[in-house]
């Protein structure tokens, strides 16, 4: 369960302040497939990153399973991201010097490449149709393939939450659909809570939770 209680986020740029989130409150129960939608600049990506413990809100609290993310120590936040949270980005954000296999293993690199994790990473990539692309660099992969590698990186750890920021933003509609099919498969098979930021509402189903925000405030959800 993710509980967001009246959070604000203000950026200081020189002497001027920009308030991106203006008192947002909402809940996302476990196992939901949720979408954060809204126009550009509405603060949806900021909300997503705050939920993912990539930054702290200016005021308010975010609770993941009852635990305050903003009150966590840096080490605890790192551990949370490493073990329980997965991220998928619009620009794929793969490490260009690493092969597809090593990109999937990125969360585990500081602890060394354990054979068991390597085996799981190979199996995962094979299961999403990239078994013959294990040792290809990102520049040798298509956009769709890169995003699948990014999803594999996010889910190898079997996270409780996956945060996806415009995951189809740089893909054509067919490839975009395949990416969403993969996320929904993960959601159904593993019960992972998936929170996605998108402009494109074609991928939203009636059963999905929608959080609609505009000008830093929740309109719906």
């Amino acid at each position, binding site marked *: 369960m993710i509980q967001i209680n009246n959070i604000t986020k203000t950026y200081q740029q020189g002497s001027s302040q920009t308030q991106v989130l203006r008192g947002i409150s909402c809940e996302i129960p476990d196992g939901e497939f949720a979408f954060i939608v809204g126009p550009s600049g509405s603060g949806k*990506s*900021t909300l997503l*990153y*705050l939920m*993912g413990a*990539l*930054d702290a809100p200016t005021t308010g609290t975010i609770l993941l399973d009852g635990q305050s993310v903003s009150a966590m120590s*840096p*080490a605890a936040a*790192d*551990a949370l*991201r*490493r*073990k329980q949270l997965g*991220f998928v*980005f619009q*620009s794929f*954000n793969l*490490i*260009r*010097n*690493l092969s597809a296999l*090593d990109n999937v293993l*990125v*969360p585990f*690199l*500081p602890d*060394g490449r354990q054979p068991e994790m390597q085996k799981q990473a190979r199996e995962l990539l094979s299961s999403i149709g990239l078994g013959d692309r294990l040792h290809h660099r990102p520049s040798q992969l298509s956009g769709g393939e890169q995003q699948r590698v990014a999803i594999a*990186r996010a889910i190898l750890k079997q996270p409780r939450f996956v945060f996806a920021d415009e995951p189809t933003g740089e893909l054509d509609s067919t490839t975009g659909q395949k990416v969403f099919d993969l996320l929904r498969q993960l959601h159904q098979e593993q019960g992972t809570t998936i929170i996605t930021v998108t402009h494109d509402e074609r991928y939203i189903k009636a059963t999905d939770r929608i959080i609609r925000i505009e000008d830093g405030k929740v309109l719906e959800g």
Partner: protein
Amino acid sequence: MFRFALGNLLSRPLRSALSILGLAVAIGGMVGLYSIAGGIDAMVSNTFKQIPGVLVQQRGAPLPLFSALPSAWGAEIRKIPGVGVVDPEVVSRVNLIDGETIISPPRFIVGLDMHHRLKLKRDIFRENIKAGRFLNDKDRATNHCLLSEVIAKQLKKTVGDTLSINRYEFEIVGIYNTGSMMLDVNILMDLDVVRSLVRMDADTICNFYVEPDGTRPAAEMEAQIEETFMGRDVDVWKPSALMELGLSGGTSATNILDALTGKKEPAPDASGLKKSNAKNDVEEKSPVEVRSAEDWSERFDEFSGDLDIFLSLMTTIGVVIAMLSIVNTMMMSVTERTTEFGILRANGWSKKNIVQLMTLESGLLGLIGGSIGTFIGWLGTLVVNMLWSDRLNLYAGPQLLLFSIVFSILIGIFGGMYPAWIAARMSPMESIRRG
């Protein structure tokens, strides 16, 4: 993480290569510079471990070349318990060899008293004869000499050849090679012959080489040698009237004639020189000092200590430039990889992990640059020693080589720390969004 770090460096080959090159030059220069001090240390150590005896010379003389003692003191030293052999020596610099002025490297003629010299149990020159023979009693008052292999090669001479020293002709009877640049500058010959060449009277020598007989601790023997002459002075030397005339050029007969006819005035009398009252001079100190191998080593250590300060300053300049090059490379890398660091943080990497990655990369630059530089520096010392074997003796020992590599790694790590800190302190969200 190691493969990841290495891959990051290889993905920017030109920049990494330039950083490595900068570091290699600095470390290579450091190895080269410190090999000078290393060469001196190695030479001194190698030389003195082959010389078991001590030198007795005039107090304050930096080298036997600048020492003058009465010959008669040798007999008194011989009576001191613990003294085995006392070999008087005369040393002078050679001005001309085969008509060529000798400036650098310097050459010295060393006069040995063969009667005593041959009694030495250990003689570094006698033990290192490479061709011909060592000097013996029959060489007294002859023009026979012994050359080092270095000098023989330089002059293209061998046993049986002749050479001119200060315009006098000598026959080479043997060639030695001690392997020490300190000793292989000497041309050995009879004591009296050297005296004649340098116009020194028979009552004077430069120093005594004393070989202990092993019956007494060396320190006690050395102390007694100094005590024996306590309160005595090395008197102002005044030539006899006849010698004075003989020393003033021309033949003795013409000099005497000149003196009688009033054409020549005798040398001014310097016997009126007053003794110094300076505090350090009137203190009870022996006019002689005994120098053991350890004393010489300490003197050279003092010199090489000063040299080390100079070398450190020179090295620091190169190292600072190399470190700035690493900082620059890593800062550029941080700027380019802002998004990458955000992604790594999003995937659970801690700030410490980011610092580890960055310092591993800069440390690798240090390792590679240091290894190349150390190898080049070491190779350089071999080439220099080969090309100028009689002038330079550089020595880059295992300690220096290992230190250079470790030092280079540390430069890399320290050079990478600031950029690593910059990379680690970025907000993951900001880093990702900048991409």
